[in-house]
């Protein structure tokens, strides 16, 4: 369904250029949930930006649903692929009501029955009609993120790019949103690429994952392998150890994995 080959993204020029992504490759089958794990600066979000067309400066080859992607994307693409952002406080326009936020994609794509679609979208993400005319600042973080998911799904895409969708949420709200995402995936037979720094979230949501560090893929494995502690690369092992909590002795052994060529 999704094929990334030798993707590279750089910012800036010459000596000061930052190579955010260095020639990575992976593919995702239809109906799969694929995780991209890494710390900040690893380039994982940049990959999503290149895939979604938000960032047109990339090199390599990108394929989605059999079609090679160019620099620009058209409306038909956006009907297939949508994105949910990390920050629930930043991804909704502060001056638009929820109704307006959900009606906009419908209007842009000339879809009919806006009213029914909006009500259904709110219903599917577990928000009642009383939220329809509120402003984002009147909603909690979890509720905003649900609206973001509703907005992404109102166009009925097949592929969802999730950029740390629950990192800014409380733990109990995270559980609800993750459950929601899983349910929607099964119901609509979606394909997910989930970017996160949290190994536990990725292990729960995904079937396969790739670990990124400094723009390169360090290791790729299935979640079953992760669980069985099979990962070989020391960086992945370090991430695993760190995700278990504070362990003074283990921390002393942490290394700094600098970028390799």
């Amino acid at each position, binding site marked *: 369904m999704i094929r990334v080959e030798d993707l590279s993204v750089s910012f800036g020029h010459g000596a000061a250029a930052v190579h955010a992504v260095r020639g990575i490759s992976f593919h995702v089958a239809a109906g799969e949930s694929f995780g991209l794990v890494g710390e900040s600066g690893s380039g994982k979000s940049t990959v999503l930006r290149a895939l979604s067309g938000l960032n047109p400066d990339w090199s390599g080859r990108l394929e989605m649903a059999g079609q090679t992607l160019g620099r620009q994307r058209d409306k038909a693409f956006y009907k297939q692929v949508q994105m949910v952002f990390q920050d629930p406080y930043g991804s909704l326009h502060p001056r638009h009501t929820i109704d307006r936020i959900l009606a906009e994609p419908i209007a842009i794509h000339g879809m009919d029955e806006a009213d029914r679609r909006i009500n259904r979208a709110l219903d599917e993400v577990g928000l009642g009609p009383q939220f329809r005319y509120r402003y984002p600042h009147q909603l909690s973080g979890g509720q905003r993120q649900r609206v973001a998911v509703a907005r992404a799904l109102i166009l009925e895409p097949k592929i969802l790019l999730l950029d740390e969708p629950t990192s800014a949420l409380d*733990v109990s709200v995270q559980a609800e949103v993750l459950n929601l995402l899983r349910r929607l995936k099964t119901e609509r037979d979606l394909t997910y690429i989930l970017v996160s720094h949290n190994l*536990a979230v990725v*292990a729960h949501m*995904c079937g396969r994952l790739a670990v990124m560090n400094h723009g390169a893929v360090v290791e790729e494995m299935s979640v079953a392998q*992760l669980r069985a502690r099979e990962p070989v690369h020391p960086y992945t092992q370090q991430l695993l150890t760190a995700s278990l909590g504070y362990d003074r002795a283990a921390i002393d052994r942490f290394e700094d994995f600098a970028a390799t060529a």
Partner: protein
Amino acid sequence: MTQNPLLAVEDLHVDFATPKGLVEAVRGVSFSLGREKLGIVGESGSGKSVTGRAILRLVRPPGRVRAKKLEFDGTDLLGIDERAMRQIRGRHISMVMQDPKFSLNPVMTVGRQIAEAYRISGKGARRETKRRALEMLEAVRIRDPERVYRAYPHEVSGGMGQRIMIAMMLIPNPDLLIADEPTSALDVTVQLQVLAILDDLVTQRGMGLIFISHDLNLVASFCDRVLIMYGGQVLEVCDAKRLNEAKHPYTRGLLDCLPRIETGSSADLPVLRRDPAWLDQGI
């Protein structure tokens, strides 16, 4: 537990007047702290950050703080005037906040800010300032203290910024450090490294530490005791090592709804059902 606890809080209340009515952010929180690491865990809106600020009397009007007792090392914090409180802030009680981007002055070099913190504390000779600042930077494991001393906050990474923040707050050698989500903005490995530094410093200097966070696992593995807050009240206190034996359904719910690598991914995460009765179960 020492006879005279470092910090004694009894029935702390913090209210805010808003157009929609009175908002009670903290409703009767009580705890005491010795020279140990105490974690305060809660979700957003639980009142944990407000509690931290209330201790330092950093809650501005229209917020109102009142308590039966708010004593630091024998001194009644609510009874003294602002001047006396300023003497306590920084020198005896310090606070480290979440994002060094927002808590470090962007137009002053790092060295100058640390030096300023040192001079204000008035605890040492003036000519010692730079030496002490460099010493402090080394204590937080910054490898090239001279370079960082001359650098500006935007030139250092997030993890380093937070370590600088810790250096600044610890240079006056306070007795109590309040850390409000000090590592939430950092990567997980850097988070743990910063906490290790904090751990060492707290142990070496015999300080008390209040560690406020939303991350239950982190707090449980790092602190000695844990306070669980919900709706402005403390629902449960337990030893960090025995968190798994926690009794209150909210604590259990929080523990259960965390995704874990070990468990299979087929089942949905158990969802926390909030019982309105919890709002009256503060201890």
